[in-house]
């Protein structure tokens, strides 16, 4: 049974720019799972918002909606959708707006929580949930009003492998209940068992996509051992318990870990394992933390003592952009650290992004903003670069660009520590550090196996 259909949709962001959706057609029936793949900026999210009926910009074309159609949308960043402070109140928001009596709410809310496999108290503060749990909370907040169409924006990028596995189970049950699902996803293979129709959004049109081999967390890519021990040690982490003041330990580090110049180390762990907190601690900006036996460039980490020797790229790096043009954005730090301004143009040339030099960084696509934020650190030529989930939400083209930058920096002697939910088969690293079951350690076994292999 057809629940929604798009016919001849034309959509663009301005009269002077080409259309990102050009005569697009799509029909979705009850219980079907559609997956839409495509480069960043190709119009995937715009299409999702048209399906949701929430596209605020005008578009041309016809949209058929079944009279009983109810749409739920889980956006890319669950934090941007949180409207309440406790789990129960968050899920009940839609029920309140539908005028459901208070005494009927509790059962409906609990049912929704069970549907997404989130077994937590209704009074649990939303802020204590991990990103993966928040994603499922947002799904529960949609399922509580029984939508017939569920739209998901890039779930794989937000979730760790356990989260993806659990989400697969939830989506399978929903499809069996007749709910139609449309997801926008850079890695469709993660949901290959569920997807009925795989689409590639290219040139404003949907074409049948090709199924790819699944990416698994076990795939790692280790560089041949280069005996770096004689090089300068940039990060040294002695055994310790990592904890916030007055809180239980987040994880325990039982062995000494170190990162030297020219090395690339990947820190892998599930959502909420403490990866970002460790990175911020290394940069000296993590508040509310106990005194830890960690040194960075032979000093106790503290904000402002490393100058241009240390660069940190946090999640959602587009937050740091504020200048009028890409070039001035890159030159900002160069000016402050009194480094040659020519480096800004040089890095843009190397990345084939010189054409963006005069563009406003705020008008770029997510992937482009990500690269510009990274380039603003790279042109400082730091000794140590800390990157928090630098590949999240990037398409293949931009992932390749980031890999190119990192390998180039490493060759120049920069030590790089980056975090991820899973293995990085597309980037050759020297070592993996894992945070598993509350323990931080060197994945030496994996390194040896990969080298032998």
């Amino acid at each position, binding site marked *: 049974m057809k629940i929604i259909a798009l016919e001849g949709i034309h959509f663009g962001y301005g009269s002077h720019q080409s259309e990102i959706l050009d005569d697009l057609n799509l029909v979705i029936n009850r219980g079907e799972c559609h997956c839409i793949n495509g480069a960043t900026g190709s119009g995937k999210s715009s299409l999702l918002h048209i399906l949701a009926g929430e596209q605020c910009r005008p578009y041309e074309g016809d949209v058929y909606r079944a009279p009983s159609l109810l749409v739920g949308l889980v956006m890319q960043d669950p934090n941007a959708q949180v409207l309440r402070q406790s789990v129960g109140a968050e899920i009940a928001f839609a029920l309140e707006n539908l005028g459901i009596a208070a005494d009927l709410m509790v059962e409906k809310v609990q049912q929704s929580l069970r549907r997404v496999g989130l077994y937590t108290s209704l009074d649990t503060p939303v802020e204590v949930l991990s990103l993966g749990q928040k994603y499922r909370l947002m799904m529960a907040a949609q399922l509580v009003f029984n939508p017939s169409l569920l739209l998901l924006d890039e779930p794989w990028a937000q979730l760790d492998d356990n989260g993806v596995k659990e989400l697969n189970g939830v989506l399978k049950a929903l499809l069996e209940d007749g709910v139609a699902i449309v997801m926008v996803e850079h890695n469709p293979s993660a949901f290959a068992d569920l997807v009925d129709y795989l689409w590639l959004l290219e040139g404003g049109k949907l074409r049948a996509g090709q199924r790819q081999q699944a990416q698994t967390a076990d795939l790692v890519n280790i560089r041949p051992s280069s005996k770096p021990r004689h090089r300068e040690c940039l990060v040294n982490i002695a055994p310790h318990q990592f904890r916030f003041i007055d809180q239980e330990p987040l994880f325990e580090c039982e062995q000494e870990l170190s990162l030297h110049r020219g090395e690339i180390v990947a820190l892998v762990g599930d959502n909420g394992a403490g990866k970002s907190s460790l990175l911020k601690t290394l940069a000296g900006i993590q508040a509310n933390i106990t005194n830890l036996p960690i040194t960075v460039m032979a000093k106790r980490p503290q904000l402002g003592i490393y100058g241009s020797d240390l*660069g940190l790229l946090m999640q959602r790096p587009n937050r740091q952009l504020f200048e009028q043009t890409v070039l001035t954005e890159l030159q900002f730090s160069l000016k402050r650290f009194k480094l040659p301004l020519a480096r800004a143009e040089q890095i843009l040339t190397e990345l084939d992004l010189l054409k963006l030099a005069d563009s406003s960084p705020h008008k770029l696509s997510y992937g482009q903003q990500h690269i510009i934020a990274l380039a603003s650190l790279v042109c400082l030529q730091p000794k140590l670069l800390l990157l928090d989930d630098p590949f999240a939400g990037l398409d293949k083209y931009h992932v390749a660009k980031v890999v190119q930058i990192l390998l180039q920096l490493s060759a120049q002697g920069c030590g790089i520590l980056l975090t991820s939910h899973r293995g990085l088969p597309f980037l050759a690293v020297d070592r993996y550090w894992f945070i598993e079951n509350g323990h931080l350690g060197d994945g030496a076994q994996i390194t040896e196996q990969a080298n032998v292999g």
Partner: protein
Amino acid sequence: MLVNGRKANKVAVFRISATQYCAFALLLSLVLSSGAFFLPNSALGWLILVDALLVIHGVYLKNKISALLRLGVAQLALTLPLYYLIHGEGQMLEGVIVVLRVFLALLPGWWLSATQKPERIGEVLSWGLPAKWAFVIAASIGLLPYMLQETKEIYAIQCLRGANITPKALRNPKNWPELIYCVVLPVLIQLLKLSKQMAKAAKLRHFGSVSKPTHWPAKREEE
């Protein structure tokens, strides 16, 4: 059993609901904040005493007041030199009192947001305001901790990028525009983006569908 039942009834008579408690807290905060501006100097001591009780209550419930205290100190550090420059040494006490009044006006707001859930405040506000206004006010209060965290992170990022906004650099007023330029501006951009996304999220969850929305029960175990 019968005696226990009577006792339970007696207790029930004096128990107020979470919504009534929130209404009382909201009213008290309004009165105390207004008092900070309208009371004569001679009555400020009493107001400090009452506000001190709010601080004890808030801290007892494990809420942090350090950010508000820092704000007060920063305001004092900014206001006193200006008073000295404009009015001279004789008016310095007046400057301290002005800062104290502003601090006392903000303190009940801290206590209210620390002890009451935004959705409960929204429910109370909806008694007298349109549901949409009540939601916007409640959502704004709920957004404050997130935006504070966001501001701290953007500040740290820009410090690492070499911006002249470290506490030491900010002693020089020449660097103040840089704080606005590379921290306040990105925070405002984030706030605009977030409010747009939140509005969309609320609309997709049927916000505005009925004129009188119901409310998530605060004390479910009683039912």
